């Protein structure tokens, strides 16, 4: 990224093209999760815990392979197992590695009020800075994927970092490194998109999955974690992957029109009362009305104008 910072875009008084233009590789990173070759071994879950320094969480048993219902503040990567019954009555075991999608338009970041608590890097990674997090949980309302999780002990919110600490050192994320089937890939967004599309084409043309496709939802501007799905028309079957994820409309309404309307109203109100005072001044009881009062006596030390100024 440091090289990108010094990459020349324009040169003054220079004839011809900018030297080196267009030579840089795209540095938007991306994870590709091919759900069609996932075997549900959970190695990625363990690698994630190992690298990020968490211990295994307590598991639950609900007669499936699902070990816990959803990701947790200290469990960022979870395979969702879904027994999906197809139209012909046959059973399909759908397995999807669930983690932060690293949206191009991150709802968590839009909703966050704390200065610097959520950052989006040029490589596409959306990262929480817990030292700046105030624990309000607005990110949880902004996220369409149910990813940010609140830690009641730390009173802050945590989620997958896309191993930003590894990626900036030129390493692949821990989950990718651990995958035994090669269903997890890591590279530039462009490469992963191409690889995913090639796999989807293969699935459509040779494996009988007519609806196979790549999940890279436009509603959040695309994501930096993309999926190959056997049936891209039904992402909900893969443990509730939203078909068209969006930043919730109330969050958008709150952060743009309401914000400007509110700011205008507050400033308008302050200016309004000030102008009223300049134009009409205070309400003061006239002295003659004050003298009509019972007993006639003014309170000692009362304002001479009759107005009882504190």
């Amino acid at each position: 990224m440091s090289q990108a910072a010094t990459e020349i875009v324009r040169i003054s008084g220079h004839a011809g093209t900018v030297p080196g233009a267009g030579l840089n590789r795209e540095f938007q990173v991306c994870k590709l999760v091919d759900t069609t070759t996932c075997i549900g071994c959970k190695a990625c879950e363990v690698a994630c815990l190992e690298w990020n320094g968490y211990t295994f969480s307590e598991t639950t048993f609900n007669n499936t392979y699902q070990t816990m219902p959803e990701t947790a503040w200290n469990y960022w990567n979870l395979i969702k197992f879904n027994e999906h019954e197809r139209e012909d009555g046959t059973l399909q075991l759908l397995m999807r590695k669930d983690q932060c999608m690293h949206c191009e338009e991150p709802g968590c970041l839009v909703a966050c009020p704390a200065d610097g608590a959520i950052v989006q890097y040029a490589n596409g990674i959306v990262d929480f800075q817990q030292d700046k997090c105030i624990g309000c949980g607005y990110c949880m309302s902004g996220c369409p994927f149910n990813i940010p999780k609140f830690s009641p002990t730390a009173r802050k919110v945590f989620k997958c970092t896309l191993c930003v600490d590894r990626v900036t050192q030129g390493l692949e994320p821990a989950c990718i490194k651990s995958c035994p089937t090669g269903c997890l890939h890591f590279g530039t967004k462009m490469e992963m998109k191409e690889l995913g599309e090639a796999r989807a084409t293969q699935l459509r043309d040779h494996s009988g999955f007519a609806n196979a496709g790549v999940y890279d939802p436009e509603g959040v501007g695309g994501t930096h974690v993309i999926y190959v799905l056997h049936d891209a028309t039904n992402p909900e079957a893969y443990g509730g992957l939203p078909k068209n994820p969006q930043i919730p409309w109330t969050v958008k309404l709150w952060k743009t029109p309401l914000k400007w309307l509110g700011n205008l109203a507050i400033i308008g109100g302050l200016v309004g009362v000030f102008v009223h005072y300049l134009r009409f001044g205070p309400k003061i009881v006239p002295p003659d009305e004050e003298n009509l009062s019972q007993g006639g006596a003014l309170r000692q030390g009362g304002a001479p104008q009759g107005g009882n100024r504190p």
Partner: protein
Amino acid sequence: MSTTPILGNGRVLRYPYHERVVHWLAALSYIYLMLTGLAFWSPWLFWIAVLFGGATVSRELHPWAGLLFVAATLMMYGMWGRQMHETESDKEFWRAVPHYVRNEDELVPSADRFNAGQKILFWGFFWCGILLLLSGLILWFTHLVPWNLRYLRYFAVIVHPAAALLTIGLFIIHVYMGTAMERGAFGSVIRGDVSVGWAKRYHRIWYEHLVRDAAARK
């Protein structure tokens, strides 16, 4: 009250001690809520949180202050709720409100203990307070709201700031009128009393009631 609010030295007791305490419980908790809330409202106001011990502290204490404010609001409802119902004279007041704004108070119909504007303020804060409480509880415990009830979160993130903005509008007008505009009003909520002239000019129906009650008691 066993004694009459007419104090005899040209003064009338407008807000007895317990009403003043409740008013300031509501006022101070509201000011804290408004300022810390504004810190979370806009990045340009985030510095306000620093004045209150940082944004993390503000986030922790804001809900507790909210409970205090709701408690004070409910006490106000108990104290004043019945006096806040709209009356015929309130409708006349609204027709004469341009005169009130221009300080032509001779042309404004007499008011009871609370005038029509004060009633708007009261019910505005009361109903917004309820909305702020409901949405605030959801925001306080966002992490306990299950994913399939996430619409509660979406409701809360828009209702909470919208209701708060309405109260800020009421607050600006209330503070302006209670301090700069209506001389005598601020003293009444600090020391409790107003002059007889003040009572007659702005709340004649209320004052005449007090006089009748005092006469009946003799």
